[in-house]
């Protein structure tokens, strides 16, 4: 499993928020947030393609 470095002050805040939000551990919270954001960005990539297609249906842009 990969390890990442995180700023100490941020880590304290993460711990607090994770506990308040009812996560079993700060690690679980971090994993959840990363998964969500990654999925959103991956999804956004596909949509960008759609946006582009829509705008480029305009003859002026190919």
């Amino acid at each position, binding site marked *: 499993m990969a390890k990442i470095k995180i700023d100490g002050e941020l880590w304290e805040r993460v711990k607090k928020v994770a506990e308040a939000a009812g996560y079993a551990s700060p690690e679980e919270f971090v994993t959840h947030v990363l998964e969500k954001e990654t999925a*959103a960005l991956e*999804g*956004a990539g596909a*949509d*960008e393609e*759609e*946006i*582009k*297609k*829509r*705008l*480029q*249906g*305009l*003859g*002026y*842009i*190919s």
Partner: protein
Amino acid sequence: MKRRDFLKVTGTGAAVAAAGGVAPLLEACAGKARPLGRKVVVLAIDGMDPELVRRFVARGGMPTFKKFIEGNAFMPLGTSLPPQSPVAWSDFITGAGPGVHGIFDFIHRDPETMLPYLSISRSTPPSKTVKLGRLVIPLTGGKVENLRRGPCFWEVLARNDVPAVVFKCPSNFPPVKVRAKTVSGLGTPDIRGTYGTFSYYTDDPPADADEFTGGECIPIRLWEEAFTADLTGPANTFRENSPPAKLRLTVYRDPTRDVAKITWGGDEVILKKGEWSGWHRVRFKLAGPLADAVGMVRFYLKEVRPHFRLYVSPVNIDPLEPALPISTPSKYAAQVARRAGRYYTQGFPEDTKALSHDVFGEEEYLAQAEIVLRERLACLDETLADFDDGFYYFYFSSIDQNTHMMWRTMDPKHPLYRPDAPPEVKGAVEHFYRAMDGALARTLAKVDDRTTFFIISDHGFAPFYREFNVNTWLLDNGYIALADPFRRAETEFLDNIDWGRTLAYGLGLNSVYLNLRGREPRGIVEPEEAAALAAKLAAELEAYRDPETGKRVLVKVYKSRDCYRGPAAAEAPELVLGFARGYRLADDSAAVEFPKRICKVREDKWAADHCIDPPHVRGVLFCNKPVAAKAPALKDLAPTILKEFGLEPPREMTGRPILA
């Protein structure tokens, strides 16, 4: 709003599904008004260029125009800033500039989300829905909005009981709700909510099939001389995540002969190689038998063997059963279609994308453009026959779209000129000018001594030899910073921009915006510094020279603060680019991409344009009455027309009557 959601909002397809083809949104009745002494007739020919008119008249191919010019007014007509069709026709409709109507470019961006969108219309899916298993039932109707603001001169006519016919005027989708006979023009989407997406079925897909824009290549495999494939319809908002609705096509090919049959939902059509079908109705099921979306397509069987190639037109809104509002009264589109035959309803029907992507050869493209023209002429005959009083407007897209695509074939200086092209290809632009001569002859038959008659175009034309990427220029000159410079090649549509270090960005075909604090979400340019920065940028851009030709690329960079007046002026881009003839913005710049080179040669067949400096692409004005104005412009026409009917123009109209 997430980028994902933007799609749903942009997708007019979603609104098609929401409306479900059930209820037309607009219902107005065109009552018979009191008879009037006056008639005003406007023949609108998008993109007709004064110089080309002179050239083709001199060659003898336009006798009606020649005769008309001899006894009447003919002069250039000032266009809009920037000279793009939606902006220009909005000037015409409102009798005012973009500061009033709020259309500044084909493409705008939402300053809150920094997402780009097409400026003419917007559709919103139903806001309240309820989920039932896999079904999503809308509780409120989705809506489609016309984003143009300001007055509309035929509304004033209708209010004063002047009967009006307005056929296919651009920037009028959905059509203004009015007691007049109108059919919407440029801005009217296909059923998918795009400006036109063709489908191309082949067992020999080209290498760039995935990069098609304005079209979709569907790879197929024949088995026992047959295949099945889907035709894509509107986003189905009755399903979770609104997947596109599909219609299954089954296609059979004769074992040896060049003939094929296409079948779908109980309908079938047989075509020989090289043949076009008529319009055929297609029905996309959205929620079983409860809701559907109806459209229509034309098929073109390009090749049967060795490779199979079938082109299917964008799924147009069927004028006989419109899935979205395209006319007032809502039955008017059908009324015309029943007598003149069905016609393309999508904004710009000429399939320029199919030619750009080599799905059509030159002759095939011209054959399709000819179909569009023939249909339009049939509608002209039909609407003229129906007109005897009041105001009449009729619009042709042929000259505009075909000059964009075919100028290169008549201009030996063009990098894409082919000396060996067949004469009908080289003479294509002239051919469509001659066709307008026929349209003029038909219209003149309705012009009598109580008629004020205009022929107008929204802009002229210029060759498009070289492209300029303003975003690369801004990046190279330190006005834009990328969040991740290593992803430069993948950057598009305002992603990957480091807004904390970006001062200005280009979007659309002529617009440059400052990253303004208080307007852009992460703006850094203080409002009081904006004018100075805009002036500095304008001066630097005007001084820029194409490294390969040594020529200036931009004749004038307009500071919108000096040009636009009105309630919408604050939304304007700070700079409007006035390109020199021969130049235009690069496609990738409009999409906010950052290729290495700022200038390069134009390689797409869309190789003439008008999105340049307005005085260099003026339109035409022909009139059977003396014109007093020295420099008439598009926005002067609405007040002129109103005055002809003895009506006072609304205060927002800044144009002035032009007749003596």
